[in-house]
């Protein structure tokens, strides 16, 4: 019986629970005697709170507490910065003073005996302000760009002399791009249920990073982390908005302490646009110089992104520009635009998606100037090594992705001339773009327990916002232990489980997967150690080196006879579960030897109705080199989701801010457009065979982000091919195309 679990298209192990309502999300962990909290947000975009008329509201039916900076406890707010918190600046201290820094900032929280009562009181609470006009438009002359204080992603980099090479280049492209602010808009709203028991706090809270939420709340309240427990077994979509611990979690804990009862706090859809991060609007300039035969001689990529005034949110906007292309002269520059807004945060493909939109669009422009097919242009500039780091790639299959994608898409039959392809009155455009995202591997740990019935329980803090962590980790454990999938039970989403990194940055499979594998090996080692030392065991006295695990049995090397099974070993050892934990982390020496990234090539077909300015995606093919694919079914689904996200970025998603008060005007799912089924045509994801022994023990690269990157530029490029008009802002909307 050979268990081959990795690489198989298993269906989600939690699929049934999800579709039958058995999966419990944060807001569903209702507690006995629970009260309800509703956040009141600022209605000015900058200024000071003058007065809060709590008295009137406190008398309203069911109201138990009206908490504002006037009566909230002064919290410790000890220094704490997790991996997903900005390295510079200080997080918002909620209800600690009268300052309003951005529209929608929480200024009070109402606690009542029902949601209805709390909502009514929240609507009735009169707050007066000394308001000023905030600065929320990056193009506003009052915005002062600043260099990020720290972080590799933020550093300006240069090799050769890009400006001189640009000036001397026979063929050049220079273009500026403006990409809208986006909000994550997951289905599940942010929600926290907080319950104190003495000085211990339990939070059932939507989080992609429970151990960081535990540490952050402990730091805010000045208590030992061990006294905080965060529980989140399911996440109804995250896309990054639940990587940080936002003020509402603190508010729920404050409220629960104030009233001495468990308190449930769920943000409204509108509030999801205020204080829980967003993809920053970015302004970028790209300048390319090339020889007439299409060799890049200069690549300049300058970009800036919005941030708040109190924190520097830094993303990898220009990071791929150093290694995507072979080019002797490269200069990148990244600035932040502090404005009167909440701090942005990571959103699927953070930095890379925005930055590559600009560069991949510019490369496309260059291909037309040169008269070279855009795929061929990329082939001519494919680097042998990472020229920024001067390191070999651990693996790089970009050209294989192009070959596979082009074949599946039928790229060869493209007429290269803009406006040349038509379907009736529709203009047809084919566009292409590259995608890339780094292979992170952060320290992670996991625990495995083998039970007397021969099944295994596996635990890691982790999270599953949709990629299928439950399933893929079950596969890794089943494969490593040679057990059938149904003999493995993987649990996640508790801060008292072994610590893992954020469920973001496409690093869960690599980090947690490697830890699960290590923990499985550790429990096997533990069992073996016990077996050879146990007088009752048939392996008693054997040296540890003379036994091996074969198909879930501990057998003597060179002896075909199968040894005892897990069940026999655990039972033999007294029957109580045998447990082992282990950690995994990237080998620092290997990290210095290789540049590690996933790559992809995205091909799309759009139609443009030239009379009505309507762009519709007709089909898309993504080909990815993402290392070993643990579960092709989940991976395909993951990629399709990413492509849909990229479609939204290209044609729909845009949070519009009112310049007068910084209010997100379209903070409503009817007005903030994301693709619906009718917008999503046939999407294909293909994976090239890629073996990468360096990235991590499993050889996986992560897919979540790379699947979104590349889609938006491919669509923008296709719109150009269809129309001959280059729209350099996203999203591309009807009003951009009425002149084609």
């Amino acid at each position: 019986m050979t268990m081959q679990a990795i690489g198989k298209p298993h269906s989600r192990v939690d699929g049934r629970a999800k579709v039958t309502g058995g999966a419990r999300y944060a807001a569903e962990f209702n507690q006995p005697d629970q009260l309800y909290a509703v956040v009141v947000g600022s209605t000015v975009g900058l200024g000071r709170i003058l007065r809060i008329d709590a008295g009137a509201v406190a008398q309203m039916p069911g109201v138990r507490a009206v908490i504002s900076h006037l009566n909230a406890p002064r919290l410790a707010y000890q220094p704490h910065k997790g991996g997903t918190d900005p390295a510079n600046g200080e997080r918002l201290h909620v209800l600690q003073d009268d300052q309003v820094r951005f529209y929608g900032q929480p200024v009070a929280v109402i606690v009542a005996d029902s949601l209805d009562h709390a909502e009514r009181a929240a609507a009735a609470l009169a707050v007066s302000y000394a308001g000023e006009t905030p600065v929320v438009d990056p193009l506003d002359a009052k915005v002062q760009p600043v260099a990020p204080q720290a972080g590799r992603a933020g550093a300006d980099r240069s090799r050769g002399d890009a400006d001189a090479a640009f000036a001397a280049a026979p063929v050049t492209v220079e273009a500026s791009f403006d990409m809208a602010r986006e909000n994550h808009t997951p289905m599940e709203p942010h929600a926290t249920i907080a319950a104190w028991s003495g000085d211990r706090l339990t939070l059932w809270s939507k989080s992609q990073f429970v151990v960081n939420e535990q540490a952050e709340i402990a730091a805010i309240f000045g208590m030992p982390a061990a006294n905080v427990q965060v529980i989140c077994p399911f996440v109804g979509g995250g896309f990054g908005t639940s990587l940080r611990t936002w003020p509402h979690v603190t508010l729920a804990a404050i409220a629960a302490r104030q009233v001495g009862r468990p308190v449930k706090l769920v943000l409204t859809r509108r509030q999801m646009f205020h204080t829980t991060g967003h993809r920053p609007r970015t302004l970028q300039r790209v300048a390319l110089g090339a020889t007439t035969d299409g060799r890049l001689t200069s690549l300049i990529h300058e970009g800036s992104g919005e941030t708040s005034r109190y924190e520097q949110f830094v993303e990898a906007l220009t990071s791929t520009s150093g290694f995507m292309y072979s080019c002797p002269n490269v200069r990148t520059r990244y600035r932040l635009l502090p404005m009167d807004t909440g701090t942005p945060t990571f959103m699927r493909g953070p930095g890379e998606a925005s930055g590559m939109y600009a560069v991949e669009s510019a490369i496309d422009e260059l291909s037309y100037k040169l008269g070279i097919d855009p795929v061929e242009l990329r082939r001519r500039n494919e680097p042998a090594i990472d020229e920024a780091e001067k390191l070999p790639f651990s693996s790089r299959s970009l050209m294989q992705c192009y070959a596979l994608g082009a074949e599946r898409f039928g790229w060869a039959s493209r007429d290269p001339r803009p406006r040349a392809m038509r379907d009736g009155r529709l203009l047809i455009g084919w566009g292409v773009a590259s995608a890339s995202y780094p292979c992170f591997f952060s320290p992670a740990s996991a625990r495995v327990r083998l039970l007397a019935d021969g099944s295994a329980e596996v635990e890691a803090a982790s999270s599953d916002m949709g990629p299928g962590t439950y399933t893929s980790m079950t596969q890794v454990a089943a494969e490593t232990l040679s057990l059938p999938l149904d003999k493995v039970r993987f649990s996640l989403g508790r801060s008292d489980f072994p610590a893992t990194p954020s469920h973001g940055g496409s690093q869960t499979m690599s980090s947690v997967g490697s830890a699960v594998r290590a923990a499985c090996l550790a429990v096997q080692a533990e069992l073996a150690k016990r077996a050879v030392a146990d007088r009752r065991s048939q392996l008693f006295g054997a040296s540890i080196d003379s036994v091996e695990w074969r198909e879930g049995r501990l057998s003597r090397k060179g002896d075909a006879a199968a040894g005892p099974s897990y069940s026999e070993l655990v039972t033999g050892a007294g029957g109580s579960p045998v447990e082992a934990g282990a950690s995994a982390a990237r080998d620092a020496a290997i990290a210095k030897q290789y540049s590690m990234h996933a790559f992809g090539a995205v091909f799309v077909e759009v139609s443009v109705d030239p009379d009505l300015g309507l762009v519709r995606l007709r089909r898309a093919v993504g080909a990815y080199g993402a290392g070993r694919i643990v579960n092709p079914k989940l991976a395909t689904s993951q990629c399709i989701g990413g492509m849909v996200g990229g479609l939204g970025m290209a044609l729909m998603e845009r949070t519009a801010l009112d310049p007068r008060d910084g209010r997100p005007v379209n903070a409503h799912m009817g007005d903030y457009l994301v693709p619906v089924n009718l917008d999503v045509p046939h999407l294909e994801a293909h994976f090239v065979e890629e073996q990468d022994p360096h990235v991590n023990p499993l050889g996986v690269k992560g897919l979540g982000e790379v699947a979104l990157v590349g889609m938006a530029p491919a669509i923008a490029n296709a719109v150009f091919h269809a129309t001959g008009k280059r729209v350099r802002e996203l999203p591309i909307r009807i009003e951009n195309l009425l002149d084609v």
Partner: protein
Amino acid sequence: MIPFTLQKVLTEAEAIAAAGQGGRYIAGGTTLIDLMREEVERPEKLVDINALPIKHIRAEGGDLVIGALARMSEVAAHPETQRLQPLIAETLVEGASPQLRNVASIGGNLLQRCRCPFFRMLDAGCNKRAPGTGCSAIEGLNGGHAILGTSDQCAATHPSDLAVALIALDATMRVTGPGYERSFPVDELFRLPGTTPHLEHTLRPGELIAEIRVPGGPHARRARYLKVRDRSSYEFAVVSAAAALHVEGGIVRDARIACGGVGTRPWRMRAVERALIGKAPDRAAFEAAARQATEGVKPLSGNHYKVELLPRTIVRALEMAGEVA
């Protein structure tokens, strides 16, 4: 949400009596409840009219007759609708989502309130929601707003797709009041904002919409609805056009055109219609006629593109109607 009482009524008389005591009708509740949850609407008494026997859909002579409580999905799928007024079916299916259409009524659709974002934000000025508080859109972000029929107090578009088609088709409606009934063109239901943008329709207090009647005619078979929007479905119109043509002997004898997304009420395009009569139904004639549509437009800072898009939408809708066999 403000607490309210709910009274279920079984007859029109009961309904009207309840409304006379300050009750507010509720049918599908798809828009009213939504607005109540946000405290934009604050009725204290709701009158559930769903049990009233006004759910019929039938042909009377060449007319299509629709009870006010018929659901959007039922009307769209009904064979008589498809036979007599395919434009109505097409228009309904372009609106909202299948789930909403299963619940939403025809009467409620006509009385749905505007989708201006500021209307729904209690902390923003909105003359429609709170008279005298000012309009946040006119000097603000207004890309989705109206270019026709605006005043200095309001520029919100009327959101209903159905109303556009009904107005193009010269539909009439029958309403019931205390001790009387009256019928009038659907066109007369809608008001312009002027200085009273909070008054959106001409129903008298407590009047119940009972029935819609859509007269047939040779134009009805060549009739199409085009809804232009950035997302393929589940979005209100950026610009829309209903167009019905009666062509005989290669000449346009009758044309009915109304547009959505551009006016503070559904907008009949009489000048465009007049310009088409007697012309051959070709693109040149459509384009020449459609230019009349932008007569008197008043674009705001963010919606100049609608001035461009409006005639193009009409041209395409006419082309679509012209192609129908």
